[in-house]
Structures are given as structure tokens and as C-alpha cells.
């Protein structure tokens, strides 16, 4: 079953509102990655976090990696219609370091 959980599964926001998606792993991750899939497209890599407690920003997007390296969050400030899509987290898990994706959060931004 899915061992990297994401919540919420769906989120509808009004344009200009903030949005946050959370990612939780049952085991410690050496790194956490975030991807965005636009409607009709394929997932595209956004960023990778490696250090415990790390915070990175990309314009209106803020990514955090938890102190225990088991959870992460993506926060979007003042959403725009261009933010629409599904956001996935992923991390290498298990002794074989398989890249494991979360279930994704589908964001809808209402104009």
C-alpha cells in the first residue's frame, strides 16, 4: 500500500487564497522531492530538500522538510490559476532506495 501519504487529496481555493499540502512518510527519508503535474501533462520536478528542517522558496512556493525527515509541506501564497494541478511528494524508501510517490493533492483555483 501507499507508504507516503499526502493530505488533502483535493483542495479548491479562490484565486488569491493560500494553499498547503502535507506529506508524511512512515520512515525517515534521505530527501524529499516535490513534483507538479498540470492537467493533461506529466509530473515535473520542482525541488528537492535534503537537510532536517530545511526550508526552500521558489517565488510564491515554500517547501519545508520536517526535523525528523519524515514529513514535508508545500505552501503556496496567493494562489493563481497557473497553480492548478496535482502536487506530488516523493522520497527514496527502503534498502533499495526506491523513489516512492505520495498520493498527490489536486489543486483547483477558482477565478
Amino acid at each position, binding site marked *: 500500500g501507499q507508504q507516503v501519504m499526502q493530505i488533502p487529496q483535493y483542495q479548491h481555493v479562490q484565486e488569491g487564497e493560500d494553499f498547503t499540502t502535507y506529506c508524511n512518510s512512515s520512515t525517515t527519508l534521505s530527501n524529499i522531492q516535490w513534483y507538479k503535474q498540470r492537467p493533461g501533462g*506529466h509530473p*515535473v520536478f520542482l525541488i*528537492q530538500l535534503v537537510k532536517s528542517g530545511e526550508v526552500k522558496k521558489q517565488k510564491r512556493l515554500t517547501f519545508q522538510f520536517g526535523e525528523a525527515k519524515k514529513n514535508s509541506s508545500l505552501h503556496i501564497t496567493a494562489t493563481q490559476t497557473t497553480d492548478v494541478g496535482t502536487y*506530488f511528494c*516523493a522520497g527514496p524508501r527502503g534498502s*533499495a532506495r*526506491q*523513489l516512492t*510517490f505520495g*498520493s498527490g493533492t489536486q489543486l483547483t483555483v477558482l477565478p
Partner: protein
Amino acid sequence: EAGVTQSPTHLIKTRGQQATLRCSPISGHTSVYWYQQALGLGLQFLLWYDEGEERNRGNFPPRFSGRQFPNYSSELNVNALELEDSALYLCASSRTNTEAFFGQGTRLTVV
């Protein structure tokens, strides 16, 4: 540098037939992942190949199989197609412990 390429982009098959999907990873990437994505849903992990070997498979029946060739390209075979196999099949490649790059996908329709 070329990205991950998948072929064909679209495939229409009838129930009971076999489908073969192909993936060429980015040069230097030894890992290839296959995912099934039904319309509007998340990434369902199918298979993971690394260095020519199958490292893990998801919770799919044995009629889903594949292989990785010495040049690291990969093939996904689906036998005895069923209507519910209709989906977008995504291939991703990566180096160990780094981000994944996805192809555009193969849209398989079973009629």
C-alpha cells in the same frame, strides 16, 4: 539533451489483446519506473528497473510485465487487456537517489 521518450503516444487495443509500451530514459540514468495513472487519479506504481534488473513491482496482476535492456531502455507489456487497463502509462528515469524525469506518457485505450 533528450528527455525521457515514450512510444507510442496513443494506443488503442481491443479487450484480450496485448500491448507493448516503450521508454527511453535520459542518457546516464539507470533506473526506470513505470506508473499507471487512471483519469484524474494518482500515480499507481507498476514496476521499477535498475541496472537491468527488476527491483520491485507494484500490486498489479502478472499480466503486467516488463524488462530493461542493456542500454537501460525499457518495455512494459500488458497481456490479456481489460477495459479497466485504459489509462495513461508514465515512465520516469533517474539516477540513484536523485529526481525523476517523466516522459509524456502513453495513453492506452482498451475498447
